[in-house]
């Protein structure tokens, strides 16, 4: 059984690497995270035997992630709603999106050096 789990983990690793090269827009991050959670779940359930362990062990596992989510979630209530207020009548502030924008600057050549020369301040 351990080998089967290992095989699945390998397959999921290959998937997550492959998916990273596919532009899914806003979905890239959730997909990568979902695969990581799936992999972690496999390790926890089978390699760490939680599937066959007591309710208490399961509860403890759950507790860890529950409080981690409290840490993230409640902190993000601050960061994600900061933009709401400054916009006069605005709805979505700058911080409200969690996804990677599809229009991220191209790799390697952000054109900054060129920009530096062209638009340098001329006092």
């Amino acid at each position, binding site marked *: 059984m351990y*080998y089967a789990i290992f095989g699945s*983990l390998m397959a999921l690793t290959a998937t997550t690497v492959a998916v990273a090269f596919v532009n899914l827009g806003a979905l890239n991050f959730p997909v990568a995270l979902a695969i990581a959670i799936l992999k972690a779940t496999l390790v926890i359930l089978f390699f760490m035997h939680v599937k066959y362990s007591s309710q208490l062990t399961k509860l403890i596992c759950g507790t860890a992630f529950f409080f981690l989510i409290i840490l993230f979630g409640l902190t993000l209530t601050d960061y994600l709603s900061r933009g709401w207020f400054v916009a006069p009548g605005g709805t979505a502030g700058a911080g409200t999106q969690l996804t*990677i924008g599809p229009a991220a600057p191209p790799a390697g050549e952000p054109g900054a050096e060129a920009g530096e020369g062209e638009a340098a301040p001329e006092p």
Partner: protein
Amino acid sequence: MADGLTAHAGPHGDGQAHHPDLQHHFQTLGQQQEAATLGMWIFLVTEVMFFGGLLMAYLLYRVWYPEAWVEGSLELNIVLGATNTVVLIGSSLTMALGVRAAQTGAQKATVGWLLLTMALGLTFLVIKFFEYREKWELNHIPGPNFTFEGPLAPQMQIFFSLYFGLTGLHALHMIIGFTLLSVIAWMAHRGRFTPEWYTPVELSGLYWHFVDIVWIFLFPLLYLVDRTH
């Protein structure tokens, strides 16, 4: 967990009926094992929260500076990262097999699997070392000497601070795990474990898997932000 590991040091058994590894304040060996396992799980909970602080910072700055994150992730070597993922998951497999061997009393197999696990762990650390060295040469270590060409340099420094914070903390855990396993392997070699009492093997297994899980998250979070460019 240390108590589980060094339990042999204090066999206070007052009667022959007691298992030599039963500590005086426990009623039964089962109670002792359950306590040790529970302790380890609770310890792992604290470990989750320990990484939680850094991950919270990661999450915030990823939301704030998505472009820097994409660029930062492209700076990392995906081949080495993926290799390390495979190596570490492999070491989890060998660790699980090692625990199984200890459970069934296969002493030699136990030692073998543990040594293999350690070897894979060492491989991981060596690869990590080369990655770090490359960053060192590129002056990508955050601090006064940090250099990065481009307009996102300040945010890139945050990215690399988190990269080194997270992977450094993870590597530290690997080193601790490696040390732990070398003790366990030595104990296994000396025939300290039986199918009734192999708690130390089991506990270090839990720890090792936890370290593996951390990497399972770190790999996509750091290396795979967005490779479509």
